[in-house]
């Protein structure tokens, strides 16, 4: 493998690869060697050559049927052996680590029993970024990183991590090569990745990319994993949780950040603002002059939640269905801070 194999999974896979690679090179050299030798030795030297007519040789043919068979059996055996080691490590080939339908509680319980983990992150494949929901770490609370602009998966070193993955649109795949094998991230399913990045005492960064073609900006769907030593991670976690969960303070709204999220992040795949990168075609109305529109989401003006103002807009963004039951606008699980910045930005669209 040409990437550093960091986790135990990646290492086991790397070892298997190196082993198989040796055989691959040997077979390659054997066949190419034979070809070159045949071409040289048996090239036609005189026009009238009449070689001996050999129609076959049972023994030779049996040999080159059986020998490759033995080789294949060996590779198969080794692979199964690696897989059982991976299973023991509770990872990709863990029989219970596979995908199951969302709502299959029994399967979910099996996954939970499979291995003790220190941190669970819910990962959602979006078009075209990864959203991370931290459910909890050591009682420090929950928060989400789902703005779609440069969010990183931050995790502690030396801890067992589990990613619970799903998608609310098309199929994606989670693949950070150095941390082990990939897994599809399917709509309607939950799939899992386990890993544990050894502590080096320093910050480590690993890059990966979505690995199932998922539409226009598939190429930009990068996964960046930042691994911090436990102490630093704890500090990061509580600081982020506090910042994200602060009660909304509209005097601190940052319209520039709101614009970035809206036009290049989570909202851009559905909404359009003329003259920006947001050219989504899902929402029924353009947002270019949103703040001058009569009401939110074409609600009747009689509805007290319909008027476009800070509070109403905030409520809409945090939970659209609570404002307009049955709306096609999803709950994007925005953190308080993201929502405040977005409201600030949206109100500038006159």
């Amino acid at each position, binding site marked *: 493998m*040409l990437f550093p194999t960091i986790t135990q999974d990646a290492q086991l896979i790397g070892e298997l690869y190196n082993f198989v690679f040796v055989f*691959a090179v040997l077979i390659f050299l054997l066949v190419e060697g034979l070809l070159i030798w045949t071409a040289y030795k048996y090239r036609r030297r005189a026009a009238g050559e009449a070689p001996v007519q050999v129609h076959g040789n049972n023994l030779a043919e049996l040999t080159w049927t059986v020998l490759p068979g033995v080789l294949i059996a060996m590779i198969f055996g080794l692979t199964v052996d690696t897989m059982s080691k991976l299973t023991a490590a509770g990872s990709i080939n863990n029989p219970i680590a596979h995908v199951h339908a969302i709502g299959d509680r029994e399967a979910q319980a099996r996954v939970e029993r499979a291995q003790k983990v220190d941190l669970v992150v819910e990962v959602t494949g979006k078009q075209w970024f990864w959203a991370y929901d931290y459910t909890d770490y050591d009682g420090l609370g929950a928060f989400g990183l789902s703005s779609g602009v440069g969010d990183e998966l931050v995790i502690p070193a030396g801890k067992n991590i589990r990613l619970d993955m799903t998608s609310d649109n*098309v199929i994606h795949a989670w693949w950070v090569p150095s941390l082990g094998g990939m*897994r599809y991230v399917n709509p309607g399913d939950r799939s899992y990745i386990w890993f544990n990045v050894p502590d080096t005492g320093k910050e480590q960064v690993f890059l990966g990319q979505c690995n199932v073609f998922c539409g226009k900006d*598939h190429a930009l769907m990068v996964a960046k994993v930042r691994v911090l030593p436990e102490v630093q991670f704890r500090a990061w976690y509580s600081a982020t949780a506090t910042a994200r969960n602060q009660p909304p303070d509209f005097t601190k709204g940052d319209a520039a950040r709101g614009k970035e999220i809206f036009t290049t992040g989570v909202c851009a795949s559905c909404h359009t603002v003329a003259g920006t990168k947001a050219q989504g075609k899902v929402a029924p109305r353009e947002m270019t002059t949103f703040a001058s529109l009569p009401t939110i989401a074409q609600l009747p003006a009689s509805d007290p939640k319909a008027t476009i103002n800070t509070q109403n807009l905030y409520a809409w963004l945090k939970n659209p269905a609570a404002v307009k039951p049955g709306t096609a606008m999803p709950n994007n699980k925005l953190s308080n801070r993201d929502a405040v910045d977005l409201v600030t930005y949206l109100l500038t669209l006159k």
Partner: protein
Amino acid sequence: MASIPVPVTRRGSALGGLIDILTTVDHKKIGLVYIVSSFIFFILSGLLALGIRTQLAVPNNTFLPPEAYNMVFTMHGTGMIFLFVIPILTGGFGNYLVPLQIGARDMAFPRMNAFSLWMFIFAAILIMTGVTLAVVGYTAQIPSLTQFSSSAAWTAYVPLSSKQFSPQIGMDLWVLGVIALGISSTLGAVNFLVTIYAMRAPGMTAWRMPMFTWSMTVTAAMILVATPVLTAAMIMLIADRQFGTQFFSTSNARLWQHMFWFYSHPAVYIMVVPAMGMLSEILPVFSRKPIFGPKVIILSTVAIGVLGFTTWAHHMFVSGISPEVERFFMFTTMVIAVPTGVKIFNWIATMWGGSLNFKTPLLMGFGFLSTFVVGGITGVVQGAIPLDAEVHNSYWVVAHFHYVLFGGSVFGIFGGLYYWMPKFTGKMLDEKLGKLHFWTMFVGFNLTFFPMHILGLMGMPRRIAVYPDGRGWEVSNLVATIGAFMIALSVLIFIINYLGLARRPKAPENPFEGNTLEWATDSPPAEYNFKKIPVVTSARPLWEARTGQKDIEH
């Protein structure tokens, strides 16, 4: 230009020629229309490949915007597989050669044959017009035209290919096109099977059948089993898109993957088995030896045909099927390497001790063998589930399947074109240009695709429209792009060679000392193929006639 030996019996005028093409039911003309038209689609899909490689030549390139890139790689894959390799091998070479090789006057169902051809042309027009409009749309900035092409990859995974995520009409055109191709292909398969079963010349027992005809038998059987499944999946997809039938609703999106790969894994054998058959014709002829172990070659082809149906889920190792099932498919995937390996050794043994006549067809044969083996090896590597989990959908896989499909099928196709061109046209392609073509293509091919193994192992996913700098992917990508332009140059050399045919003298009757029945008649053969239906007494009737010796029965 008027004297280029295009594949038509002229009836005096260009119009007469056109009418002849449009109404013919002759297997040779149908075969040649297939060959010429699918070669045009090869050129178009190749131009799209140059678009891909130009965009990826350097990091952060903006030559193609992502929407355009996605369309281009989708249509490159679709075109190469559905409109080039499969039709040229089965519809083209198969149609032309099988009746001649078995000593028949035509296919069993000539009119159905013509129907298959025009179904194919119709489908190709449906798909290719969409691409052309979309390309115009992107270059001339007319957004309304860009919706005429699909951009959901040639695998069209749901839900990406659903109405919600691919609303454009191009997706529907693509699905309709593939349905039409499926019908064309399935009818063609029936035609081959009946022809080969019922119309062999007297004395042509199964074991005396030429290797290419054998490979077409297995291919047709595979098509017959596999293609209806794909066609059904496509009909279900279009019903989902147009009528909301919900066959592939989110909760069973994996059904699509199963149905798609149930066809598309065998499809790689559908694309390579006929090319293997051509190789099994070329190697003995150019070594002046019989094929080594004909029964083993035939049985391994049959084995590949059967085992080919047991491996499809290796495309789903990381999509979430149960581990027991995965292990089964890992086993079958590795096992299929055995009959393939056997073939390679039998081919080498065929040449061993021979008198190798290094004309272009044999060079192409060496190109096939030396590159295909790489694809075979990488196939076993990624058949191992844990390794697949690190290389699936990466550039490693792009390298793997081009080593199989380009290295195998395309080298095979060019070998076949050089070998049978005198049969098709009565004239021979130029040897010097042929050798130049081979070496440019061989070097270009390896420059393009070898570095992709490295890219994959460095973590570069396939189907990405841009990549950042600083990840070590720059050099390999640049080399691959240079190689791609070399391939383009080599194809240009071939075209020049072909256009030069007009000025070349009439070829000898059997210029390469072929041993099978297609060489026992005029070049190009008359409408009825043989004045008298030959009586076959061995696998190499023409060798017997030429040497006056009796060939051994196996």
